[in-house]
């Protein structure tokens, strides 16, 4: 098992920069997810860690050794591909044993190792089957088997659940995490699906246009998005933004949005006057007729336990997640109150989050634990 350290990693394809100045550390035994829309450079980063692409600049360290320019086979890692890449001309047993064959392991030992692995993944009854007849979830398990059979330093997975049906996907998310808890292998997992990322990751890096926008635990990323991109990318529906103008002074506890005063977490830095945005998650909005922040109901999505209500305000549509029991009809005028403790503030120009009390509380808590 190993720690992966990525330093100033950069990759350019001609004029197109796929990854720029990427820095992160995946600690030993951690489940690390790179999350982002397609084309954000997450797969390129993964392929560079694997040795399938060579970086234009920067360094990759595996357990402290510089592997930046090593061939894939010299790195002792395993890779699970989106399309699984199971060899159609081999059966399940041969597919799983294939990496061991490369090491010149005696066939009796390969046999035992393959069977152990298959048992771990509960596919021992499929060993002599052809891979082409397998269902999606079983193919996935065989691909995982091929990865773990060699007991490599770390696992790299490139959207391994991307082609599965929703039903299998939920099952596999659970199984993957469970497997990780059992074998504690350092894992780098690439996905564009925030649900997969949130439910499996110890740490997430949210990427966009080749840049890591935020690196942190799922909770940090959800509660304290570092940029407007992260706030918008994570959450379903995503964070709402309400524009407001003017600067912010250190210590400010209140802002004015659409003529209504809104209490915010104490601001911890001075911001020169500029276009700003107030970010609020849908579940932190409540309806309150007394509020001065008002809008008309545009539509509702009933979800059973909750409902998503779209409210048209002076600054566009705001989505709120409220209990399903509340009866609402389109066109109703409502007032909105925002839970002050959960608000985020952003500079619209750079998209950067303004430092407030919520960041300091979090770091204080972390130091206490540390």
């Amino acid at each position, binding site marked *: 098992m190993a720690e992966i350290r990525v330093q100033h990693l950069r990759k350019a394809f001609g004029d197109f920069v796929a990854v720029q100045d990427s820095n992160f550390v995946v600690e030993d035994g951690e489940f690390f997810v790179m999350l982002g829309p397609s084309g954000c450079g997450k797969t390129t980063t993964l392929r560079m860690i694997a040795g399938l692409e060579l970086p234009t600049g920067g360094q990759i360290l595996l357990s402290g050794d510089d592997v930046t320019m090593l061939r894939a086979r010299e790195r002792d890692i395993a890779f699970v591909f989106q399309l699984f890449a199971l060899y159609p001309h081999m059966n399940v047993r041969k597919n799983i044993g294939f*990496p061991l064959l490369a090491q010149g392991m005696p066939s009796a030992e390969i046999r035992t190792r393959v069977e152990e692995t298959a048992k771990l993944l509960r596919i021992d009854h499929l060993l002599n089957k052809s891979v082409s007849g397998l269902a999606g979830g079983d193919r996935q398990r065989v691909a995982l088997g091929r990865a773990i059979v060699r007991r490599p330093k770390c696992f790299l997975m490139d959207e391994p659940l991307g082609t599965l049906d929703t039903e299998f996907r939920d099952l596999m998310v659970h199984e993957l995490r469970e497997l990780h808890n059992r074998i504690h292998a350092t894992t780098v997992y690439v996905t564009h699906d925030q649900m997969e990322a949130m439910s499996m990751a110890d740490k997430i890096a949210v990427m966009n246009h080749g840049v890591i926008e935020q690196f942190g635990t799922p909770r940090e990323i959800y509660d304290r998005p570092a940029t407007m991109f992260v706030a918008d990318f994570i959450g379903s529906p995503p964070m709402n933004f309400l524009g407001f103008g003017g600067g912010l002074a250190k210590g400010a506890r209140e802002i004015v949005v659409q003529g209504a005063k809104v209490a915010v977490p104490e601001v911890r830095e001075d911001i020169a006057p500029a276009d700003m945005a107030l970010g609020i998650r849908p579940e932190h909005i409540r309806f309150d007729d007394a509020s001065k922040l008002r809008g008309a109901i545009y539509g509702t999505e009933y979800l059973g336990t909750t409902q998503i209500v779209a409210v048209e305000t002076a600054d566009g549509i705001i989505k709120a997640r409220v209990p399903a029991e509340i009866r609402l009809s389109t066109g109703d005028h409502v007032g909105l109150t925002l839970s002050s403790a959960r608000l985020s503030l952003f500079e619209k120009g750079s998209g950067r989050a303004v430092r407030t009390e919520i960041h300091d509380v979090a770091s204080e808590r972390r130091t206490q634990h540390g």
Partner: protein
Amino acid sequence: MSLTTAHSVVAPSSNSKRIAGAIIIAYALISIVPLLWIFATSFKTPPDSIAYPPKILFQPSLEGYCNLFTTRTRQTPEYINSLGPATGFCDETTRKRNMVIAGPSNFLPRFVNSLIIAFGSTFCAVFLGTLSAYGFSRFKVPLADDLLFFILSTRMMPPIAVAIPIYLMYRELGLSDTALGMILLYTAVNVSLAVWLLKGFIDEIPREYEEAAMIDGYTRLQAFWRTVLPQATTGIAATAIFCLIFAWNEYAFAALLTSGTAQTAPPFIPTIIGEGGQDWPAVAAGTTIFLVPILVFTILLRKQLLRGITFGAVRK
């Protein structure tokens, strides 16, 4: 509203099926009749073969095959009678025509030449074609498109345009009338086809297979050998049969560049006519035997051949 529209295919009516069937059968007959005629002629006696009106029903004879494999000399009846009893069917038949067998004909060595040259050049073309197709498919080759077009363009030239230069070059290089020379020539002609066909097939194989193997500890060549080749067998088989058919049937260059030791069957077969009158059954027998290897190969590989023709349009 039907939801299946996107997937539905108009089912052919029974009438149109019948018409299509009739057209196919008619075309098949037109194509097959000359072959049947050759096949039938090979089992006729020389008088039957030139009978008018042509005989549809006749007493089959192996005389054509005897004549194909032997050379004969005309002798006086007295001399033939002075010989001992005939040693076999061919001997007997030959004596009836006032001839004796002088020795084996050149057909068998020519046929063997054809086998060596056709299979040898097919192997070389497919071997080189597979490796270059893999290279073009997987690596960033500078000017790849231009190179591929250049490779294809070697096929655009009519053979007659290069016939004289090749003849002169081969004479200088001592490649005239050698099996090696013919293998090189047919390989050069076929390799363009092989590269293009195989590139299509290899492009279809996801590169994740080799990448997976390379991560799992194999070198690129091992990965190619163990993961790409097994999946490219269909394409390789289709390509091989196309190359083989070309090399097997090629007449013009063979007639120009080979005359003796390396002569292949196609330029040899017509020369049978000259030996001892117009021996149509022997020519037909030679043609029939010549058809057999390609026929067997095509039947064995018909599925791959079909896939090769459709250029991978049919998904596995």
